[in-house]
């Protein structure tokens, strides 16, 4: 185990005091250190939002890109170098709003990256508009009569897309969350950890206390993560009981496993071969 503090970084943290993100950050460090990874071996790609700032607060290699577009950047990086350990830090708006289409595609590719969605059910950084996961009726300065769309259910959708690792964490259960992140990073293929995260500034509905009363660990209920049907049912539970844990896991060949050229090593390690290229050119 590398030391958790190896991942500490002296860049000033910019989240609000009390934000659920702090625990997510701590859980990430714990998971990475627990896996004996060190900052040099980790690439975190993020989008824009409070969640997207995460890699600035954790020592690592990072690419902090556009709102909604972390997944394709991560996919490109993984294609270029499939030896990389790639995590994506995304928000509920970033990932299921602006970036919804990439979420669908990333799951379908089964690209071996770990997606951590900091799901505070609100647009934090832009000051509190509703997000795709906001509950119906959630009132904001912008949604003045409350949200009138069905909330996006990331777990159900991931399951219906054939995802191989589908989990839900809660920032208030840090150790449990660290375990989920560790399992997700260890999983070969696409892994989703949707993390319930209170936003103390803009979400006064889904607060820490609200969640504390509701979360139930599926592992403790004897759920078998190989059971897709139950996973789907669990994913649809929301209200007095909110299941957290690994809903579903199934190993299968990942995207880069399926590309023959990559069996011989990462593209980034291939050096230019003038003779081979000339042979191709001559063959035209």
């Amino acid at each position, binding site marked *: 185990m590398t030391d958790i503090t190896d991942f500490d970084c002296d*860049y000033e943290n*910019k989240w609000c005091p009390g934000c659920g993100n702090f625990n997510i950050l701590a859980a990430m460090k714990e998971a990475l250190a627990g896996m004996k990874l060190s*900052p*040099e*071996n*980790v*690439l975190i*790609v993020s989008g*824009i939002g409070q969640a997207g*700032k995460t*890699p*600035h607060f954790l*020592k*690592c*290699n*990072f*690419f*902090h*890109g*556009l709102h909604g*577009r972390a*997944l*394709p*950047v*991560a*996919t*490109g*990086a*993984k*294609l*270029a*170098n499939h*030896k*990389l*350990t790639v995590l994506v830090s995304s928000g509920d708006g970033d990932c299921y709003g602006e970036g919804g*289409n*990439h979420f*669908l*595609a990333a799951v379908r590719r089964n690209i071996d990256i770990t997606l951590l969605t900091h799901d505070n059910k609100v647009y934090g950084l832009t000051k509190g508009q509703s997000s795709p996961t906001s509950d119906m009726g959630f009132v904001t300065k912008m949604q003045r009569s409350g949200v009138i769309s069905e909330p996006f259910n990331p777990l159900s959708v991931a399951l219906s897309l054939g995802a191989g690792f589908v989990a839900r964490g809660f920032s208030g259960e840090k150790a449990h969350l660290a375990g989920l992140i560790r399992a997700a990073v260890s999983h070969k293929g696409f892994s989703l950890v949707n993390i319930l995260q209170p936003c103390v500034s803009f979400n006064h509905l889904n607060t820490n206390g609200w969640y504390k009363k509701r979360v139930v660990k599926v592992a403790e209920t004897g759920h078998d993560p190989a059971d897709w049907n139950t996973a789907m049912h669990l994913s649809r539970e929301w209200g007095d009981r909110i299941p957290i844990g690994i809903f579903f896991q199934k190993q299968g060949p990942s995207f880069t496993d399926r*590309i023959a*050229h*990559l069996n*011989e090593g990462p*593209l*980034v390690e*291939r050096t*230019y071969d*003038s*003779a*081979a*290229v*000339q042979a*191709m*050119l*001559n063959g*035209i």
Partner: protein
Amino acid sequence: MQTDISILIGGQAGQGIQTVGELLARMCQQAGLSVFAVNDFESRIRGGHSFFQLRISERRIQAPSRHIHLLVAMSGETHALHRQKLVEGGICLIDSAEDGAGEGAVAVPVTQLATEAGGKIMANTVAAGACLGLLGAPFEQFQAIITDRFSGADANVRENNLDAARAGYRAVASINFQWKPVWRDMSSEGMLMNGARALALGALAADCRIGAFYPMSPATGIMQQLSELSDTYPLVVEQAEDEIAAINMTIGAAFAGVRAMTATSGGGFCLMTEGLGLAAITETPVVIVNAQRPGPATGLPTRTAQGDLLFVINAAQDEFPRFVFAPTGMDDAYAVMIRAFDLSEKYQVPAIVMTDQYFNDSFALTDGPFDAPHGHDRYTVSDADMADPSAYKRYAFTGNGISPRALPCNGQALVCAAGNEHRQDGHISEDREDRNAMVEKRSAKLSAMQSEMRPPAAYHVDGSRTLLVSWGSTAGAVQEAVSRLRDAGEDAGCLVMADIWPFPAAAFQEVARGADTLITVEQNATAQLGRLIRQETGMPVAHSILQYDGRAFCVEDIVDQYHQLN
């Protein structure tokens, strides 16, 4: 006098017009002739009308001509649409099965001969045979080409096609076609190439290892060629879920250290503009091909245009250096791709290559074989190059704006990149000093970038008082138009621009200095190059020869418009 004739083979989509055109072009190439061909088709899969217009000569040709000497009408529509382009003495062959036979067209039982040879589907091969018969080509050579072309298919198919070709060849034995090129027993020097392939080969030779794209005419061909190369060469072509993903994947791949590209057309390029800015502020080298077609919006998906110049130069919010190139021919396209990848990495900026449907889908001979570069500078650093890798800063100030570029997870040096304005270490900063320094760092690259720009290629410029100025794919047509104008006693030369941005203003002024009339030649309606020249040099542009109907300039289009100006 040398032969210089054009053959137009037209028919419905799905009738194999392009296949037969390519076979003929290959035949000419292998018999020592120069060819140039345009591919004209509708945005549909079956039916409608499409054509392949093949120009053949013993001397080097690089553009289409308007005048047709041989019209091969696989459908009645071809005859109706194109017969007015036939020169005096030209011949129109029409399938006897089609309407319009008779009205000045020579009926050949194309479909019937094909059926006899084994199936209607080979009507195109019959037509090819007939063309070659009229042109007096040696059949054996064509036989070899057909055999080669169908080498993958079963023997029956091959034989049937040979029969079909032969039948076509014979069917026209009695018809006298007055322009017969000199068929030789040796290949022309160059390779038969279309623009899409030249671009893909350039990418290959540039060591591009990842192509991410979303299908869009007329860019798809480039990616399809790259995909074919990936059959045997270790590179990966990935079809993204949309263009936004394509550019972001390209950025991710480049960030991780491989050379990567994407290709699209206008609407797709629109969707990539935010990513273009991301590449710029993160200083990630990427190459983007924008294969232009007429717009706005969906416009004419399978037609040509040069309507995106000012958009591409100014695309994405705020300001940043970028390279913009517009290849002027097959060899140039190959070379430009290699330069685009190199310069993009050298300066850590995005490079955009502007082509168009005309260029991507046209066939021409290259000047010679394509040479693979011996090696590539990759302009990266690793721990070994650093005194203290743990102190590595991705955006370190260096004076020339170019920071040493390390790759992520490649040592102790942490690589931190952000699309927010940032400090030297890649962390977000909102300080005005950091902001100013970073804007200035990025734009500090501009003067060196500008010095990489080749001046416009000049033809008959010395002493010419009138200069035509073109950019990109129309080069061949403009040069030939100038030759023709000069032959007709006009005092005209031309400048052909391939390196567009950063605009080589000084070089342009230097070379254009002697002229008193500049006329841009462009496939758009608002003379974008003309406006750019005025913006960047202050030189007035007197006129513009414009065409925006989605069809490529023929040499005569330029000559005619020139005469109308005066």
